[in-house]
């Protein structure tokens, strides 16, 4: 996978994960063009499109578009499954996830994604394992929390 973008129906970016090195300007350009292209697609069209020299796989879940750019030798149908798996992970973590969850907790959405994919490929094919790892990492982060809480009470 070269990159993954999540954006709303109005074209607002909610998450961007790039697995190839590109300048900020290029990323912005690609994002703008791709978002436009995908939003222009009619509901009856298939989930795949050729864009520049890449294959783009996208799927809409409620008000969010999940869009991945894959290479020519990658399997489009299994990419749809990867997208679905990520949505399931988000759903399990947030409990019936909706766009607002991802807006307000975007850093968590990234953490979950980074626990599921690394360098564009799936690290673990077991939902349970990924969720367990996130859970443990969250616990570790919680251990830091009391100190901060204590501090802010005093200042």
């Amino acid at each position, binding site marked *: 996978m070269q990159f993954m973008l999540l954006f709303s129906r109005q074209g607002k*970016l*909610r*998450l*961007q994960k*790039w*697995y190839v*090195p*590109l*300048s900020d300007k290029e990323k*912005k350009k690609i994002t703008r063009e791709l978002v436009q292209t995908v939003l222009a697609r*009619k509901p*009856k*069209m*298939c*989930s*795949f*499109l*050729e864009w520049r020299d890449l294959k783009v796989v996208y799927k809409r879940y409620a008000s969010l578009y999940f869009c991945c750019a894959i290479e020519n*030798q990658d*399997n*489009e*149908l*299994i990419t*749809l*499954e*990867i997208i679905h*798996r990520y949505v399931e992970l988000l759903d399990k973590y947030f409990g019936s996830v909706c766009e607002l969850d991802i*807006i*307000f907790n*975007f*850093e968590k959405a*990234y*953490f979950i994604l*980074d*626990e599921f994919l*690394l*360098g564009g*490929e*799936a*690290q*673990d*094919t*077991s*939902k*349970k*394992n990924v969720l367990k*790892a996130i859970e*443990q*990492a969250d616990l*570790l*982060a919680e*251990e*830091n*929390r009391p100190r*901060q809480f204590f*501090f*802010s009470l005093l*200042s």
Partner: protein
Amino acid sequence: MPAPIRLRELIRTIRTARTQAEEREMIQKECAAIRSSFREEDNTYRCRNVAKLLYMHMLGYPAHFGQLECLKLIASQKFTDKRIGYLGAMLLLDERQDVHLLMTNCIKNDLNHSTQYVQGLALCTLGCMGSSEMCRDLAGEVEKLLKTSNSYLRKKAALCAVHVIRKVPELMEMFLPATKNLLSEKNHGVLHTSVVLLTEMCERSPDMLLHFRKVWILVPQLVRILKNLIMSGYSPEHDVSGISDPFLQVRILRLLRILGRSDDDSSEAMNDILAQVATNTETSKNVGNAILYETVLTIMDIKSESGLRVLAINILGRFLLNNDKNIRYVALTSLLKTVQTDHNAVQRHRSTIVDCLKDLDVSIKRRAMELSFALVNGNNIRGMMKELLYFLDSCDPEFKADCASGVFLAAEKYAPSKRWHIDTIMRVLTTAGSYVRDDSVPNLIQLITNSVEMHAYTVQRLYKALLDDISQQPLVQVSSWCIGEYGDLLVSGQCEEEEPIQVTEDEVLDVLEGLLVSNLSTPVTRGYSLTAIMKLSTRFSSVNRIKKVVSIYGSSIDVELQQRAVEYNALFKKYDHMRPALLERMPIMEKTASNGPTEIVQTNGETEPSVPDTKHPPLVTQPANQANDLLDLLGGNDVVPVIQTTLPTKPASAGGELLDLLGDLSLSSGPAPAPSVPISQPPFLLDGLSSQPLFNDISAAIPPMTAYSKNGLKIEFTFERANPNPNIAVITIHATNTTEADMTEFVFQAAVPKTFQLQLLSPSSNMVPALNQGSVTQVIRVLNPQKQQLRMRVKLTYTHKGSPVQDLAEVNNFPPQSWQ
């Protein structure tokens, strides 16, 4: 200093902004606060501030001043800090910033951290955006982690290694030992990532591929793992819609594909499992189909037995009938890849494919169109063409150009009759006329010229089309050309194929003049119609009217038109005696290659005055080739002297050409072979024909060969493949002479069996210098559509030491790559 606001607070606030300006203001205020907080080196809130910065970055605002802060966060001991720090690094930093190298040390420490989640963060970041320098520095650490027993880290290390190899391919070797035991893991995560790593190594290095195939003998191992996956019962952890770990299955199938490619043993070892997967996988959900898709791709790519291939194509055929358009799309794409190799199997699904032309999805329509053209053959041409023309009528403009070209090509190859061919082309021109490519006009004109018996029918139909609609330029151009040529047939009502129409000369001239004045006509079209009117001066009796029209345009603002008119005027005035000959009917043009650029041969010396068109690129007249009566050579009897015209290449200049020609033109109506006549063909016929370079794709793989070596004369053949048509082999002959005397008047002739077509271009010279001081080169192009073994008979004539020498020889030792 009050505590900086929390992240969620900020997000909420920004979302209340009603205008872009309001949002910008909020952001600027917050950025200022964050900046001063950074300046104060506040450790407590750095994490919160960077998180807010990342949010603002996602909205599109600049956040580069946070880069160093990310590094500080990464260096912190707190896990929350590291988490945000690494996230920030992945979002804000990349290998273009020099700052990113500062991360290397932190990552190195974190890779050896006591907490696996910290190690995980480091591996993730390195594997996501590590630059080549970082990868070089840290590859050792990654390799170490690849050998750990902690599967959580092992799987991440494997993917990190993939990234390292992509960035620094030379480091691949160092991961080899650690990779060896990866496949014996039970953990699916490790298995999956290991297969990805192995795949990456195989794709990058053919040596590795061989190593895995022969030394590690990976195939049976992979087959075993795959089998276990399929046969094992329900495993809730990895189940997706009833299928056990589809992600792993797909990955294994892909690796098998690479291992089995062009290797018989490996392919055989996987035949069974592929058949099993292909027949047993559930197809009701997308997951199952994803696995089947990968299986089909693998079957088609390895050396599978024919039964398996048919199974694969049938799966694709079933996909085509699936309600899910994604599946249909994927099927069409795969069929397109296999249509060349398994043509007959794909033909069986032709009707389904044609149905896909009516699909609503653009990508599916395009695929279906490409596939349909690939499936057209002599048997189904009529039916297919009906469907394709219907498609052309109703499709989006983006398809029309490609579809029209495809129709022309298919019609040219498989037209059942001349009339059908012309009807088809007419249909395309009338429905999609403005989208046809420029070179279709000269091709079409040539086709019409060659169908002698259809001239009357063609001109009549074109005339009628012109009455209906003069907006589609290619149609108008072809029509005016035809009317100019065959106007007499039109007026005399000679049509046999259909009811002849009654047309008077004046009506015809009205139409042509209408084209000249119409706003819809482009300058090119105007040129065509003026020339057509001029030609009619020898076919019609109303010469005075024509003279008047021509003289009017002598003062036209359009320079091109003006020049033509002036020259035609001159024809009327000073050179009236030449006019009939000059404007005579065009001779039949012989096509020498049915694919690719068509070279035209003039079989008599009369030519039309070349009226260069400024719209077309300046012409470089390619040296014309000889007439193709070489088949007589094969029989070994009366050798027909082959006409070889050595032409000086004459770039067509805008203007003055006519007068040059008039000076050179010898109107002796003897048989052709006077080689000194510079033949300039009408630009609109040659356009697009000679503009394609002959040697696009040089395959160095075809070895040269010695075709003839006798009496000191040696002829060597070197080969190239001409793109776009792989059926054309381009042979360059090199003739050298080892004797002490020159070989003068050297002529090389060649003949090929009937299934081939041959084209001989001009030689570099007529003299092969003595003692290998130089060579004569000449280019031969051979069209071999049936891919039969190439054979050639050559005839050599030259003068050596005063006496003429002649020799015939057969060349049979062509390397297989030259004709396969």
